[in-house]
């Protein structure tokens, strides 16, 4: 299946992907309205996060859609599953907010959403963006959406 991959070599650490993710999942059509006055990390909880290392390297991290996903295996309510394509999907109605998945994900790619259910990257299939918004707006082709 097509997944989001990050070419570390080209990631500039500009953090645009975080804002584009937060915007895409805000339900708003205007970025200023969606993000103005909100603080990253507290008010804005994007599903992709850029790790900035001391040595100047940067790396955007989001769900890898593992073939043997620990989050799915550990989910007590059946909210997490793999669909026929292989995408790890979340049924937010079923999630009970036990956060077990957050604890077991080795990439930190599942996170609280501010309410009870957790959130994770759904490749922008659950919003109006149509295609992964982080990929679309990455200025240096560091984030790509492709079959490997």
């Amino acid at each position, binding site marked *: 299946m097509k997944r989001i991959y990050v070419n570390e070599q080209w990631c*500039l*650490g*500009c*953090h*645009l992907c975080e804002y584009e993710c937060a915007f895409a999942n805000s339900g708003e059509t205007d970025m*200023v309205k969606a993000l*103005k006055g909100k603080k990253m990390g507290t008010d804005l909880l994007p599903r992709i996060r850029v790790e900035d290392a001391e040595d*100047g390297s940067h790396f955007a991290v989001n769900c890898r859609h593992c073939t043997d996903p620990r989050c799915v295996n550990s989910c007590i309510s059946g909210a997490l599953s793999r669909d026929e394509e292989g995408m790890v999907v979340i049924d937010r109605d079923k999630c009970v907010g036990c956060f077990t998945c957050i604890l077991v994900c080795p990439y930190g790619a599942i996170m609280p959403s501010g309410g009870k259910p957790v959130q994770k990257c759904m490749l922008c299939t659950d919003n109006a963006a149509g295609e992964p918004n982080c990929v679309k707006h990455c200025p240096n*082709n560091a984030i790509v959406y492709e079959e490997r």
Partner: protein
Amino acid sequence: MDTYIYPEYEVVRDTDKCIACRVCERQCSNGVHRYDADLGKMIADSDRCVNCHRCVCLCPTHALKIKKSEDTYRINANWDGQTMNEIYRQANSGGVLLSSMGNPKPYPIYWDKMFINASQVTNPSIDPLREPMETVVYLGKHTVDIERDANGKIKNNLPPQLRLSMPIMFSAMSYGSISYNAHASLARAAEELGIYYNTGEGGLHRDFYRYGKNTIVQVASGRFGVHKDYLDTAAAIEIKMGQGAKPGIGGHLPGKKISVEVSATRMIPQGVDAISPAPHHDIYSIEDLRQLIYTLKEATAYQKPVIVKIAAVHNVAAIASGVARSGADIIAIDGFRGGTGAAPTRIRDNVGIPIELALAQVDERLRQESIRDNVSVVVAGSVRSSADVVKAICLGADAVYIGTAALLALGCHLCRSCHTGKCNWGIATQDKELVKRLNPDIGAKRLVNLMHAWNHEIQEMMGGMGINSIESMRGNRLMLRGIGLTEKELEVLGIHHAGEAM
């Protein structure tokens, strides 16, 4: 910073739109933008801004723009603001003013004073989408004496040629003045397009030897990075006698730009200034030039054309005539609007002549002396569009070099601060964090796009004239008409004024 000078450009932020994502702050190598936690908003220091537009382009909400400062001194037609600021700058630093990229002064642009012809009624135009349209050109010496072997068959004694899929090449820009990724983009694009890029005088990085068949290597007065493999790898060798942006002077790459890789490629010590002398110390005559040309030909077994690049100066036609007789296969002429990574401002803005006039005179002189086909003529020095290419060919060029246009395709916004080495677009810098901003996957693609677009436009214009090959357009000055030019300018260009018939 100079306290006498108010910033020439101001960063204007629409605070209603700014979401304080700090992308501008992270992307500015000049430290213009900063988030102030106490104020709870982004602030900018316009004093540091070079107007490269990196922040403007990356701002996701378009909250930023850069404006020309409205601050003005008392209006003075003689002492304008720029002139006054340059005095303040020199009074402050005591140094020679440095500038980058091409001459920005409002001198006449002759390309914009020439119109191209088209067919109507009595001579059919050609639709390039339906009929073949030849844009391939061969550069090199085209005249040879016909020799036959014992069986009467014609011997192939044609000197080596460069085959270009379109009459455009990427001009000389050295590794050192521009980044590894910029070179990678140019090399890859040249290979895909079937044209050539030029190493400039900075040697050829070992990673780019594989693009050798699309590479022109330069031998300049500093002889940086010149060795046997360098010459053998290339498709052609260019002797750089001069550069349009700074005729008559050499080059100076500051030591801080001589990184490990640049040092290895140029074969010079790391961190030490690289000085290209003004003249080649072994060339003081056409005869001396001939010696270097034949040294290089001998070293490469007469398999590669040799280009001699000169700046367009007052006596360019006579110089070109000498070069044509010196054994060069191709003459490259660089006009006074040509770009540079760094040049003294006064030289860049005041020395040399426009390429259009130089080209017309060189072509005319070589024809008069019946040696036009002994060499190909390539022109450079601000070819900005496919229309400029067509006009250059009509004036007599075989092909053009583009430098600035290629850099624009890579993201350059002509802030003309290359000499600071802090290029925010990853082009004119050796800072690793900045260089990675230019992904050659994107860079090469954009260059290929630009060249394809220009080639389509060239075909359209040729078709309109009823011409189906570059060969039949070359030197076809009847296809040009001048507008707003004096008798003398028309005479130098060798064209009629608009409204005049054949």
